[in-house]
């Protein structure tokens, strides 16, 4: 054969390479690929677990957020109720206070009227007494003065007479 091509040696090389290829497949290629696949599966599993946990955490977060939102709503409602109750109570108390004040004013007015009437009644009598007393005083005072005047006139007349006599 040209170029020293020898079929027997070609077959020998083929046989040698086939044995090598088979040995390499079982000794290195397959076990290393298997290990790499196993590791990939492990990391995929880890990633999946992490994702599941993340999803779960997200779900819990949403759940808690919803619950917090409910709690906020509830707190708001309770606050509103309390405020409403407080307003009602305040209104009630103000009403009562107003009624009480009204009653007190009425009573005060009644008392004042009664007092005034009483005072007015008392003052009329007193005025009458005072008028009487004043009239009496006035009368007595004028009598005394007339009497005094009379007396002084009399005295003066007596003195004048005496003086004439002496003359």
């Amino acid at each position, binding site marked *: 054969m040209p170029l*020293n091509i020898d079929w027997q040696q070609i077959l*020998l*090389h083929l046989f*040698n390479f086939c*044995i*090598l290829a088979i040995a390499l497949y079982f000794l290195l*290629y397959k076990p290393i*690929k298997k290990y*790499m696949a196993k590791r990939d599966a*492990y990391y995929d599993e880890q990633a999946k677990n992490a994702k599941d946990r993340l999803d779960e955490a997200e779900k819990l977060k949403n759940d808690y957020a919803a619950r917090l939102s409910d709690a906020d709503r509830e707190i708001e409602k309770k606050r509103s109720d309390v405020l409403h109750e407080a307003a009602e109570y305040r209104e009630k108390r103000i009403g009562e206070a107003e009624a009480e004040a009204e009653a007190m004013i009425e009573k005060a007015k009644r008392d004042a009227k009664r007092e005034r009437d009483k005072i007015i009644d008392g003052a009329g009598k007193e005025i009458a007494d005072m008028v009487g007393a004043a009239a009496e005083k006035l009368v007595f005072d004028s009598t005394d003065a007339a009497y005094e005047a009379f007396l002084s006139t009399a005295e003066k007349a007596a003195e004048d007479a005496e003086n004439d006599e002496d003359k």
Partner: protein
Amino acid sequence: MKKKTVALWAVVALIMVALLIGIIFTGSDEEGADISETMQDAVLHENDKIDFFGLNVNPGFISALIVSLSIIAFGVVVRIFVIPRFKLKPGKFQIFLESIVSFFDGIAKQNSPHRNGFLGAYVFAAGVYIFVSTLFELIGIQWVSVAGESVTLGAPLSDINAAIALGFLSYFVILSGGIASNGLRGIGRTLKDFSLPISMSFRLFGALLSGLLVTELVYHYIALSFVLPVLVAVLFTLLHALIQTYVLIMLTSLFYGEVSEPHVKKEKNKNKKTETAVSD
């Protein structure tokens, strides 16, 4: 740090002394076999056959056997002692092994997305074999030929029989992918590229033989055997190893992907039929 520097300079000085001694004691006259004969032997292996259990084989086959046995021994050691101790947080050696497998597997998946399980295993084996066997010529193991002369074992693929074996095997792998995916249509697609096995075989052979010839040429003259082989042998061999590995596995993957691509029926005929039916 100082000790290291001193040691480095000592090594450099020793190399320089060795070079000087070599230059002084080697004459300009070539000795030994004629260069044309050496080159012819390197290509045709007519005078350096080696006995293998009664068969006269080329040195390349012995090289192939040694390479295969070495790789298998390495594989056994790794399988028994390393792989069971693989960790989730990998060490350097684990990363190295995983990177190699991922590289070949990735090439198979990238170029043949529809069917790549077998292709990945094949390109892994072929890639490792081509790379290691090309680097093998750096060692320069000596063997005794049938004629009783010393023969340096070169890269297995610099033997045309090994290159043809690998080229045709790659072609049959491509053919098997075509048959597995598309049956007869796959055979047709593969046979369309009938020149592929020849081109793959001779590309491998040519590339590795050229490396071997250059190395032979360099070593033939004793004066060139100093310093120059460090550049020529190591760089040529490393480049060959990388390039030829990449080329063969890439070609195999590309053609495998092409022939194993599922056949898609053309829509035109369907549309025509529908149109005819509607017009009727």
